[in-house]
């Protein structure tokens, strides 16, 4: 009797398990919903950018769903996203990716925020052959590993400030320039550095200061003293928001005169708001700006996206949100071209993507990086006490002229 009961229980659990697995393997498309998964930083040190990313995703999901959804096989489907909070922790992100794929049966993923977390998740999605479109991992090393299921809508990190060096050379009458640079020791900033090294080599420019800032460091006084003593033509700084804010604070306090200052993360750091006039003339790399003339039928153009986003979330969209929205446009386009939910067909369709979104042109290179969209540079310009970011390069989208050289501190009010 006892034995029979045990057998019975085993049988029942086996059946339940089977049903559970079967149902989860269909979870990629549930009824009229295409389910996407994403581990995202809602708490921890990346939480503000994590929320920007999530808002970008949600905005695009609502927009696509309300405008007819995704048409596959003559039927219309809607997007739905399962989110988990990765606590800004790479290990947790990898676990959650595994959970999304194995337990929730998600077959298509959206990327997390930051290069570090994308790096943690990519091996997992690769292992299970899950196509992932990511919008916030720019590190070059993501695109040199031969990943087949990773697609990034953004330009890789090494392209961030290359344009700035070209611009400096141009302003120097085509002659090589002297570069001073300070980069934080993390994957992203070091990739930006590699881009500068390439640009320096290409233009014959020399690098006279090459400081690598430890992550814990929030004081750049020594680097800036060196800059003061050596008088380079251009100073390049990249160290996330902390680096941007520290640099402007200390450059203004130490009265460091340098003809050109190029940085990353100015908009994320709200540089023009936090430092006001002190940040004027800083040149910043950005993935996107609302003034660009790219268009698509879902969001219209950048200005309309900016307006709609403000209406929905109450703040101006940083580029992190814009690129996240673009990721969903890419997925929609790929599903419709694949006309199937077969993962490999979708992956092949993603690979063949060649489209324009409000965020920029998107076409994936062999490593999965977006090769169709250039980085843009804006410059902080102030009128009275209000400062704004004005696009100055590339010339096609420039709304304002690039101001060069930066006036000396003694001449600035």
């Amino acid at each position, binding site marked *: 009797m006892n034995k029979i009961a045990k057998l019975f229980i085993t049988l029942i659990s086996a059946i339940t398990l089977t049903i559970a697995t079967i149902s989860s393997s269909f979870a990629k498309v549930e009824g009229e919903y295409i389910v996407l998964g994403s581990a995202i930083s809602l*708490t*921890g*040190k*990346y*939480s*503000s*950018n994590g929320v920007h990313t999530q808002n970008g995703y949600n905005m695009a999901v609502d927009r696509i769903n309300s405008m007819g959804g995704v048409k596959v096989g003559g039927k219309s489907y809607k997007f739905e996203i399962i989110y988990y909070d990765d606590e800004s922790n790479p290990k947790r992100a990898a676990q959650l990716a595994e959970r999304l794929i194995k337990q929730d049966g998600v077959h298509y993923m959206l990327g997390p925020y930051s290069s570090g977390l994308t790096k943690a998740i990519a091996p997992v999605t690769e292992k299970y052959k899950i196509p992932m479109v990511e919008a916030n991992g720019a590190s070059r090393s993501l695109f040199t590993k031969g990943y087949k299921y990773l697609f990034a809508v953004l330009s890789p990190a090494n392209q961030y400030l290359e344009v700035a060096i070209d611009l400096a050379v141009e302003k120097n009458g085509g002659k090589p320039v002297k570069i001073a640079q*300070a980069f934080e*020791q993390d994957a992203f900033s070091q990739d930006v550095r590699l881009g500068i090294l390439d640009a320096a080599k290409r233009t014959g420019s020399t690098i006279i200061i090459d*400081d*690598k*800032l*430890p992550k*814990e*460091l*929030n*004081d750049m*006084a*020594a*680097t800036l*003293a*060196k800059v*003061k*003593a*050596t008088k380079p033509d251009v100073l390049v700084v990249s160290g*996330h*928001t*902390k680096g941007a*804010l*520290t640099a402007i*604070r*200390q450059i203004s*306090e*130490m*009265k460091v005169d340098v003809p050109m200052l190029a940085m990353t993360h100015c908009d*994320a*750091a*709200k540089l023009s708001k*936090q*430092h*006001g006039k002190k940040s004027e003339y800083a040149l910043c790399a950005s993935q996107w700006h609302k003034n660009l003339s790219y268009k698509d039928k879902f969001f219209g153009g950048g200005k309309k996206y900016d307006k709609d986003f403000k209406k929905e979330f109450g703040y101006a969209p940083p580029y992190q949100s814009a690129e996240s929205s673009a990721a969903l446009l890419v997925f929609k386009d790929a599903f419709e071209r694949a006309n199937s939910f077969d993962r490999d067909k979708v992956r092949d369709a993603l690979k063949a993507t060649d489209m324009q979104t409000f965020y920029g042109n998107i076409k994936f290179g062999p490593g999965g990086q977006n090769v169709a969209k250039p980085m843009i540079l804006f410059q902080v310009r102030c009128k009275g006490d209000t400062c704004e970011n004005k696009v100055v390069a590339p010339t096609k989208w420039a709304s304002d002229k690039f101001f060069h050289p930066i006036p000396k501190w003694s001449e600035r009010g």
Partner: protein
Amino acid sequence: MDFLIFKAPMLMVQASLDGILLGILFALIAYGMALQWGVMNIINIAQGDLVILGGYIAYTMYLAGIHPAWGVIVSPIIMYFVGWALYKLVINKVVDRDLFISILATFGIAIVFQQLMNFIFGADVVVAQSEYGTTMLFDNSVTLPNSKIFSAFISLVYAIALVVYMKKSRLGRAIRATAQNARAAKILGVDTEKVYAATFGINAALCGIAGALISITLTLHPYVGLPYTVRSFMIVIVAGLGNLPAVAISGMGLGLFEEFADYILGTEFRIGAVFMLLVFILVYRRFKLSKKREYLK
């Protein structure tokens, strides 16, 4: 010798002044740590997070339109009570346990504080503006931000005030007595529980002052507390407990060492060099101690 710093003597002056000014600020944080370490035998991992919280208090004032420098008065008052409450809630349960338990407990506090600050103030890096301007020396070749001079000056004022307070006041003497021998102090009528709470409060207040100064000299972020903990730990290790002049000197010394390491070894080795120095000092101390022991034999 192809080092920039030896070619330009003004850089040497700049580096020294930068190092000393920042070192004094770190010494203030370290003194708080030394105080409660000495009195309560607790290594406070949350030290840096208390500093950052103090900074956010000044930053909040700045957002409200008050000059952030007033933070050096408001922040320690608020932080004293935060420290006091922290003692009553958590620390009093671990104060007579072994060091490992207190490290774990304060580590937990650190995480809770980080998340709370992240929740309340957001994960953005923020700065408060003092608009103090710059002092230029030697024909503009050496520049010192007045905010750094201000912060070093305030740190010194508070440090001296504290030394006087510890020497002269009733509570100060009670604290010193408890540090020397808690049991004897208790027998002689010192309310050690009260002394502990006050010590922890004073430490938090010192962190509050330092935080307010950091908000106008450096940057604030909910997760940058640990480097301050590590640095003050290092200063205390070098200086020993309960010796304020030594703490001040070792603070400045570390600041100087760090700046010069930056010029000579390169920025990437700046913090590494400080750790190497710590290892060297610990080994040297052990070596000296073992010699003494042999002598005793």
